[in-house]
């Protein structure tokens, strides 16, 4: 947050649908002006419901939404004007591209000529100059996404909300759109909160990532903070790939025993962990590597699987009777069935309960 006053505050937002468990359970989050924050989580984790409460489409059962110090929890969506980008874009099929983008200005009673020229500018801003007169149905998926973005941006929303903005695009288009989206939002200095189930999208676009599971907020931080210092097992399991292995924590050291071979690793324990006692080491595939045979801090194992993944190869190595380590390596000449030695190449390792 670096000392900035929060622009948007989600204060213990809670939403219960019929049934005992809360869909969103006391979620609190502060967003600074100009910050891009991603809400990520598996489907059913409550991320879309949280976004809809911020937009005003859902009324929270408890908690508040505060914008620039003003409680806006009771305001209907049309009074908040957060300009949401929907998953399926929700472009009005009976209006042209230009009329779609100008709709929010029409709602504000801005004269036709002015709103059409501002819509044209907004379209140019997303690389669709001259598309004003086109029919929505004639647009490709990527173009529709950009029209939806222009439509939301043209009303200069205090906070831009995006619900899975990239999920309907094919993988190639998705990567380029991701970069464009970040560049556009940065250039305009927009504050944005967006929902995605794809962590790559979140890492690429957001300044900070908020991870939700079962309606609860598990951790908020930069992508690297979540990857290198997960607050608990759930975060470690959701963010990136990892092998969770049991060990004994002793302040800044963890002793990990695999197949009879105990190794001591430097530890970065989660904040609420007792300084001594049983704990779990999070071994990331990119923090593991092959080692020369009989290395002092290496484990012996057998390669189970070799998968080509472009720049890297992904190996699965069985070290103890039942523990499979996943490791990424540029080494290419190892084959399934080979006996190898594996060691931790980057320390400290994250430690969770």
């Amino acid at each position, binding site marked *: 947050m670096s000392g900035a006053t929060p622009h948007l505050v989600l204060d213990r937002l809670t939403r219960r649908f019929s049934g005992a468990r809360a869909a969103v359970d006391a979620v609190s989050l502060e967003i600074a002006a100009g910050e891009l924050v991603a809400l990520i989580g598996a489907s059913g984790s409550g991320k879309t419901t949280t976004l809809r409460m911020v937009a005003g489409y859902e009324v929270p059962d408890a908690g508040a939404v505060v914008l620039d110090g003003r409680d806006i929890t009771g305001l209907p969506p049309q009074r908040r004007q957060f300009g*949401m980008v929907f998953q399926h874009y929700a472009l009005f*099929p009976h209006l042209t591209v230009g009329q779609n983008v100008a709709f929010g200005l029409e709602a504000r009673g801005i004269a036709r000529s002015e709103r059409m020229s501002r819509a044209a500018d907004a379209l140019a801003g997303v690389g669709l100059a001259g598309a004003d007169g086109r029919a929505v149905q004639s647009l490709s998926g990527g173009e529709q996404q950009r029209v939806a973005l222009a439509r939301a941006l043209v009303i200069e929303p205090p906070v831009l909300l995006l619900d899975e903005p990239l999920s309907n695009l094919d993988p190639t288009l998705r990567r380029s759109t991701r970069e464009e989206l970040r560049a556009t939002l940065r250039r305009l200095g927009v504050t944005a909160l967006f929902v995605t189930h794809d962590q790559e999208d979140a890492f690429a676009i957001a300044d900070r990532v908020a991870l939700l599971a079962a309606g609860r907020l598990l951790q908020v931080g930069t992508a690297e903070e979540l990857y290198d210092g997960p607050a608990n097992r759930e975060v470690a399991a959701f963010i990136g790939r990892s092998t969770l292995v049991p060990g004994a924590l002793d302040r800044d050291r963890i002793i990990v025993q695999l197949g009879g071979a105990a190794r001591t690793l430097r530890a970065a324990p989660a904040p609420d962990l007792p300084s001594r006692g049983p704990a779990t080491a999070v071994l990331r595939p990119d923090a593991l590597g092959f080692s020369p045979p009989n290395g002092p801090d290496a484990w012996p194992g057998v390669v189970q699987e070799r998968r080509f993944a472009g720049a890297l190869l992904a190996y699965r190595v069985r070290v103890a009777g039942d523990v499979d380590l996943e490791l990424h390596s540029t080494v290419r000449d190892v084959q399934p069935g080979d006996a190898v030695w594996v060691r931790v190449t980057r320390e400290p390792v994250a430690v969770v309960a």
Partner: protein
Amino acid sequence: MSRRGDAKGTWLFALPVLLVLLWTVVYPNASIIVGSFDHGLRSWRQFASSPTDREALRTTLVISIGSVIAAVAVGLPLAFLLTRVEFRGRRLLSAVATLPAALPPLVGVVAFLFLYGESGVVTRGVQALLGLDHAPWTLNGAGAIIFVHAYTMYVYVFLFVSAGLERLDTSLDEAAAGLGASRSLRLRRVTLPLLTPAIAGSMLLGFMSALGSFSSPYIFGGGLRVLSTQIVASKLNGAMDLAYVETTVLAIGAIAALILMRWFERRRTYAVSSKGSVVRSRLQSPTARVLAPVLGAVLVVILVLPHAMVILVSFARDGTWTTQVMPPEYTLDNFRRLATDNELWVPIWNSVSMTAIATALDIVVCFLAAYLLVLRRFRVRWLLAILVALPWAIPGTAIAIGLASTFDRNSLLGARALLVGTFWILPLAYFVRGVPLVSSATEGSLRQMDPSLEDAARGLGASWWLTMRRVVLPAARPGLVAGAMLAGITAVGEFVASIVLFTHANRPISMEILSQLRNFAFGTAAAFSVVLIALVLAITLIARWAEGRWSRAEAVVIQ
């Protein structure tokens, strides 16, 4: 590309289906058009210069447009109320909102007569309440016809708009709200424009029905002339060529409406629903909270009253209800006579057997037609599509006149058979009227089937027959059952074509109701009406049962 064009096998089915439809749908109507030119342009000139015909044409249009406006005025707000607002009694109102559609045309008219006619219960009730010397209104003329039409035709608007509202992508409304649009702006700029195809479609459907409507102008018209009654009058007067001209004019109007409707339907491409479903909002203001259930209760009473009235009068002793508000004497005699008097049993048996024959024929022909339309490609598919839709637009009176003038003699060369005056002419008329209902419902079901299922079955080595039985037929079944149900309901209460074609021997229930009414045997007429309502209910229950029995097969085949 699949090999769905393999010509020989397709033609094996397409040819008989096309021939049957050309013979029963196109041939009779074409012979009417040809017949209208029998004396060159004389009949047309006669039509154009006749003040009564001009008046009939004008009145028909006025009544049709008035009926459509009245239907929209009732159906549109009701659809919004029931899909968008939550209030006490909403479920009950939803349950009875489509009730008027289950009322056979003549029964509806009879019920309105008992309720709002000059000696109707409501009319006399108001008269007594206000202490008037004579009835406060007469159920007569254009206003009366539009009133009855509004009651039956608002259902189209209600159903189309409700379906449109339910399919409407709720995120469009949310997007508009998020961009700052007020409730009224959203309604004006987003919701109503998106519903335009549904509204226009239901209006045209109402227009088509009103154009061809016969029973209410026939009973309530008074001195009023409309085209459909004019056709029957011309036929009775022996002026067949004039009847042909009038029929042609009426049919052209209806077909024009059908073409327009199809055009609107094709525009209904958007409104694909995404995540999010219908959200009913609770009423905010306390006045509305009190008013909505009261309004709902009044509507429920109005909607249930015709059925209730028919049932009540069916227990009234014939000839006793004269000047009283309510029928004074009640008895079970009417029903006892129906069960014991052979003469009274005949129309019931006629209606049931003729309906069964017509519906069975509809099922066979329309299943094949739908199969050909959805899963086969052949050169004249467009013709088949027109043939199965055509009887929808052509008013019942016109269909009847066509059949009457075509199947009135045996002629091998003219492909004619003498059916007029026999039992078979009515099942044939019912069959023709059922074709669009069964084929469009079956088409709808088949379109939901993944077409690659048929290819997959054939690819697994299944014979054509096995594929048909295990894959195509189960997929078509829900639509086939629903369509057959509609066709059966229409046939069992059919009145419009029957009045032109019936004989004493094959008179259906509707004709018997009419003749009992003419004898002022209100109790007996109502008892027949109750039987008709019971038959409609029975058909509905049979269809439900059939659907439930086969639903497991559907679940497997339909994605």
